[in-house]
């Protein structure tokens, strides 16, 4: 709680928190704000925005409500971004912890795998993965996580290495705690915070990657995503630019919110250390 209060003291933290809280509320209450399937054909195609009060942001090529798309798209973007970050950090933590704690040949092997993932351009990997396996939300989440877990893994291992030799770990070893228990109870809690600090960056990157994949036509067709809205709007970019501008703005605002929040966190962390 104290941390959050400190966070709110920084202007970045407050702005970021405000943006994200709003977005999360929109995502949670999407079915209330805009009931029904956002992909349904609701009106005449290509209505201009700010003309018909029933469709404040207009309609797209097939007559689907743009506002409904943006509202429900919030769900997809946030869900994919957060799920991918959680998956990436979970994989990263496990591998990093195992590498740092096991040492020896296991560590060597795991580090090579981490290296391999770090030198392959992650977007290329995600692109190949999704087009080969097929586009659905879990596959997209996994594809993004596959490209993002190497950084947290490396960081976790570094943390583990620095913590491993500290007194309280040595003490735990002396009293005969099982290595797995030591890793879980003593090392993980201390190694976690810097890794979590990475999470905001991963969430932001995941949201942008999801949008880029959808833009290239690799999104799940059964749900709305901002990236696929931009991709569809692209065909009419010149005659109805609003179709790609509105989801574009939504995307930018979300990513800015995430960054601001992470910066606010950074400041409070620096502040509490000083």
């Amino acid at each position, binding site marked *: 709680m104290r941390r959050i209060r400190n966070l709110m003291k920084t202007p970045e933290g407050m702005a970021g928190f405000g943006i994200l809280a709003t977005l999360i509320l929109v995502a949670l209450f999407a079915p209330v704000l805009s009931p029904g399937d956002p*992909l349904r054909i609701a009106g005449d195609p290509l209505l201009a925005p700010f003309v018909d009060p029933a469709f404040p942001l207009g309609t797209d090529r097939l007559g689907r409500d743009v506002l409904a798309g943006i509202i429900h798209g919030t769900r997809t973007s946030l869900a994919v971004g957060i799920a991918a970050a959680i998956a990436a950090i979970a994989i990263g933590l496990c591998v990093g912890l195992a590498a740092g704690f096991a040492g020896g040949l296991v560590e060597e092997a795991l580090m090579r795998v981490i290296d391999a993932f770090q030198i392959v351009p992650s977007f290329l990997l995600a692109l190949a993965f999704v087009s080969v396996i097929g*586009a659905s939300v879990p596959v997209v989440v996994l594809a993004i996580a596959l490209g993002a877990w190497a950084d947290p893994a490396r960081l976790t291992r570094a943390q583990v290495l620095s913590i491993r030799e500290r007194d309280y770990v040595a003490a735990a070893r002396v009293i005969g705690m099982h290595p797995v228990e030591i890793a879980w109870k003593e090392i993980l809690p201390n190694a976690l915070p810097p890794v979590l600090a990475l999470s905001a960056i991963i969430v932001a990157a995941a949201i942008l990657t999801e949008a880029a994949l959808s833009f290239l036509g690799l999104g799940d*067709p*059964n749900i709305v995503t901002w990236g696929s809205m931009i991709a569809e709007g692209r065909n009419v970019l010149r005659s109805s630019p609003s179709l790609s501008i509105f989801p574009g703005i939504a995307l930018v605002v979300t990513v800015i919110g995430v960054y601001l929040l992470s910066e606010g966190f950074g400041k409070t962390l620096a502040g509490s250390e000083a």
Partner: protein
Amino acid sequence: MTIANLSRRTFLQAGAGLLASTALPTLARAQDAPSGGRLIVAADSEPKNLNPAIVASNGVFFIASKVIEPLAEASFEGKDGLSPRLATSWEGSADGKSVTFRLREGVKWHDGKPFTSADVAYSALNIWKPLQNLGRLVFANLEAVDTPDAATAVFRFSKPTPFQLIRNALPVVSSVVPKHLYEGTDIATNPANVKLVGTGPFKFTEYKPGEYYRLTRNADYWNKGEPKLDEVIFRVLPDRAGAGAALEAEEIQLAAFSAIPLTDLARISKVPDIKVISKGYEALTYQLVLEINHRRKELADLKVRQAIAHAIDKKFVVDTIFLGYAAASTGPVPKNAPEFYDASVPAYDFDVAKANALLDEAGYPKGADGNRFSLKLRPAPYFNETKQFGAYLRQALAAIGIDAQLVNADSAAHQKAVYTDHDFDLAVAPPVFRGDPAISTTILVKSGTPAGVPFSNQGGYENKELDDIIAKAAETVDTKARTDLYKQFQKLVAADLPLINVAEWGFITVARDSVLNVSNNPRWAVSSWADTALQS
């Protein structure tokens, strides 16, 4: 940006009226079109094998038809819809076992060697019949090609082969390649498959992968005075939205095959000096078809298929998805094939109440959540319109209580899932009608095609009566009797719905006004462009 844009637009529009009135009359005159100039055209793909004798596909023809010519080309005015190219006349025997071609004399290959009947015989027996994707079917019973003299080729068939079919297939299956470059080599890997040598109005000069193909004028072309252009350049622009921008910026002068998205046409037609042409694709009609997997218990029931047909608002599909650049289909043969088309087939009006009633009758009541059953719907990824129709169909089916889950896959995965693994309930496909139902249309519904063949009946549909009609038509030599069989075929398909024909469309060409003689035959984009010219 908007203000600057607006002022520029209004300024240009004021001038547009003037320009249009002076530019139009020059379009009509074909013969005295100016010579010279370089035409730059958008191309969206780079086929790895560019030999139209082996690969008879529109992607290959688009580029190769300017270099390698067929025996005859499709025509708006000519007899039986054909105009002579390398052959000057053709005639079938009464028993359907031979066809005689008189060949054009004085024609030279691009390397200077003379073109003779030996080239035709070699192409037919060694390439069209054994290797070509469509020729394998059309020339299945071709036994020998006699060459009594250098300007005559007589095709002999082991079984009666309808002359109507051969004639209709000529523009697509009869690209002639030089015997002297292919004989004794491995045809599949011959370098001339990429660096083409033909008799056409343009020579293949240069290919820069990922950037462009360059064709240059053939000064020795058999038709004196042609070609008009000095060069044709196909610029590779894989991104569809890029073609419109390049056309407006005058980096290219022509975009065929709807390279400019339909949604952009209304706007781009208002740009001065740019014309939008929907003619010139009459012989390459694409059909929007809903493929049905009859292995699904629900879909094996005719009432359910009828209900789905009633649930589709064809007017919405034509007006909103195709923006009017299409026509609603009645059956498996498009209206663009008047020789075969029959309008008197069972029709399915858009009627949601009737569709719901049919489903109730079939024994699939709506559940508590409003759903009757769920289906897996795979729209083919090749066109914007097939994907959009998929999105529309999901909504249309929801209205009659069928929950359709869309599956998005790229081309290779879609092809495997539908045509090899049969992992679909409904699929949206865009097959092509190629002038005769026997070439690529009957295969969509007849039974017995092994798994793995794209654009064939892989839905497990079997109808003995329909198979018999198809088999009989394949060997009926008499044109009238054969046409009647195909009329029966249409009625039966429309009644039993092995698949649902939704719409049929041709592509759109967008060109700068300076390009003359555009779209003057029904396969214009894939024809030789010998008379196409540029106004300087």
